[in-house]
């Protein structure tokens, strides 16, 4: 609910609290935090016109306009019910897809994992909007950070500069907390303004009219489909799905003039798409052990901290973890619907806490949280340095998600790269000749050069046709 902190910052902040729990409970709690922050993000979008996170930006367009017309309660209800329906259907999709994908992934070997990791990294960099070069630099910094510490293939320590603590590598959590937590604290401190004006919502206003339900429901179902499909793919599924859903709703509506002025479908579609995409993002994480987004990367880190390695064998070796997550997602969705519907007024009051107190609390919790992972002073220094990087990155309009994913997938990328070269005795063509890795690399090429070629085709001037003789 706090603008800027978002699901990633919230999860990084609360990761500490999960360390004392067993793996299933820990993942359940993190999944709950994730869903909770998605709901919270839409609430501030609708009531304050300040999206709590990137995936709620689209909701603010029509949600805030509905609030201005006195339909804030209806917008919140549609967002909550849409998220609930999409989340629930998304979990059904997860149950259907994850076991199938895990069974398929048993055929994967090093080249396939290398190609998949590469595709995930570059898809996020290419599709996250903004400048590709900025994303590429962000990604390569993440990959470089991943090379710090002991090389798992040769046992050589690299880039440690004789600092013993660095031989364990750079931990993900202080990096995420710094980039998205401390970075945001610094940005808030810079602009230190008053409290936002928060629209009041009464309980009786939380019920949309019959006409609004009729407009919302088909949009919810469409948003769910769009969101789930996009969420399965490598790249920033949550954000992309909201824009795709909004675009779809605007294209098929009979009342295009309402979009941007409080269209019900403009809230229902993107909110549902966002939640469906978040469920779908769990499929590659649980079935392949590969995160395609920074959030699932953090979930992976939490699992690894608990000694659980997601991947194709997870469902056979740790069915309690897999089905625990599925069950927690069902329960979490119901709990969030109950919490959000009648208690929305209470949650919004968080925005009325004086800003100095909020900033102090977040900063202190971030510092203590980062320290508590490894009880390391180095982690605290990494946190502060990354906080400055996050703040400067925000100023320069950098997308920092690729850096996080680069740090997480870097080790795997290097390991599978080396293993493939050992396996093939230095024959690089193996990456392209194996059907699955070849297909994944072909997709990578399309993602990398496709948009440029498409732009060139669209820019080509239309040549005049010769006149008929």
């Amino acid at each position, binding site marked *: 609910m706090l603008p800027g902190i978002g699901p990633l910052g919230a999860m990084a902040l609360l990761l500490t609290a999960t360390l004392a729990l067993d793996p299933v409970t820990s993942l359940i709690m993190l999944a709950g935090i994730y869903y909770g922050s998605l709901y919270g993000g839409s609430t501030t979008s609708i009531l304050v016109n300040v999206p709590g996170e990137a995936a709620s930006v689209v909701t603010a367009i029509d949600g805030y306009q509905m609030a201005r017309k006195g339909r804030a309660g209806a917008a919140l209800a549609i967002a909550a019910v849409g998220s609930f329906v999409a989340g629930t259907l998304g979990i059904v999709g997860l149950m259907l897809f994850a076991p199938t994908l895990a069974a398929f992934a048993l055929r994967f070997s090093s080249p396939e994992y290398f190609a998949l990791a590469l595709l995930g990294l570059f898809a996020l960099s290419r599709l996250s909007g903004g400048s590709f070069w*900025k994303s590429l630099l962000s*990604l390569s910094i993440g990959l470089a950070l991943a090379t710090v510490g002991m090389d798992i293939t040769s046992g050589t320590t*690299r880039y440690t500069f004789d600092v013993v603590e660095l031989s364990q590598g750079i931990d993900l959590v202080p990096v995420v907390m710094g980039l998205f937590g401390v970075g945001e604290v610094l940005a808030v401190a810079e602009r230190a303004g008053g409290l936002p004006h928060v629209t009041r919502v009464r309980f009786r206003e939380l019920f949309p009219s019959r006409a609004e339900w009729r407009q919302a429901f088909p949009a919810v179902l469409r948003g769910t489909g769009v969101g789930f499909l996009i969420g399965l793919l490598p790249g920033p599924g949550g954000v992309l799905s909201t824009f795709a859903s909004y675009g779809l709703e605007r294209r098929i509506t009979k009342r295009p003039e309402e979009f941007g002025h409080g269209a019900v479908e403009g809230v229902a579609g993107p909110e549902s798409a966002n939640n469906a995409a978040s469920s779908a993002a769990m499929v590659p994480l649980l079935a392949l052990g590969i995160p395609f987004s920074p959030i699932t990367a953090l979930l992976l880190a939490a699992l690894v901290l608990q000694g659980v390695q997601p991947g194709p064998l997870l469902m056979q070796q740790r069915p309690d973890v897999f089905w625990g997550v599925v069950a927690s997602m069902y329960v979490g969705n119901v709990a969030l619907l109950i919490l959000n519907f009648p208690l929305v007024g209470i949650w919004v009051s968080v925005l009325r806490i004086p800003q100095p107190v909020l900033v102090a609390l977040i*900063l202190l919790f971030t510092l203590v949280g980062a320290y508590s992972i490894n009880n390391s002073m180095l982690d605290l220094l990494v946190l502060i340095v990354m906080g400055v990087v996050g703040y400067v990155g925000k100023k*320069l309009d950098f997308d920092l998600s690729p850096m996080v994913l680069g740090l997480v997938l870097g080790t795997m990328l290097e390991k599978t790269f080396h293993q493939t070269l*050992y396996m093939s005795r*230095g024959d*690089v063509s193996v990456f392209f000749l194996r059907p699955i890795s070849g297909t994944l690399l072909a997709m990578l090429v399309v993602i990398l050069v496709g948009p440029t070629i498409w732009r060139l085709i669209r820019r080509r001037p239309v040549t005049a046709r010769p006149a008929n003789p």
Partner: protein
Amino acid sequence: MKRALVVTGALGVVLAALYLVEARRYSWGTIAQPGPGLYPVLVGCLLILGSVGIALEATLRPTGGHIDWPVGRARWRLMAILLPSLAYVLLLRYLGHPVAGTLLTLAVLHAMGMRRWPVKIVIALAVGGISHYVFTVVLGVPLPAGFWSR
């Protein structure tokens, strides 16, 4: 924006050069038996590519926007939050979390414009104490207690 991005690109190239110089210390091995230095070289090249790309993009296709770097009180506020955070890190082992946390909270509340000292002190003491209790007692995190505890 253009100048800032060109500087960013240049800094990226310097960073990549330092990274590659360090990578030379590790064996590259052969393509059939890659050593620990091969992958860092590829990453270093990617760093250079990204950095040069940013600088070229900013030069050839400038977006025109400008960056509002903090000045005056905004810059002071940033420093008044960053420096106490750094001090917290350096002093945590010696002062312990309750004291260092209270001092950090006090500094942040002051930097963010809270006026009344009694209120600031009470909030800082409460945050320092409660956070220590929550993390050490409830969550079992061994936060340093400082030289007071010896």
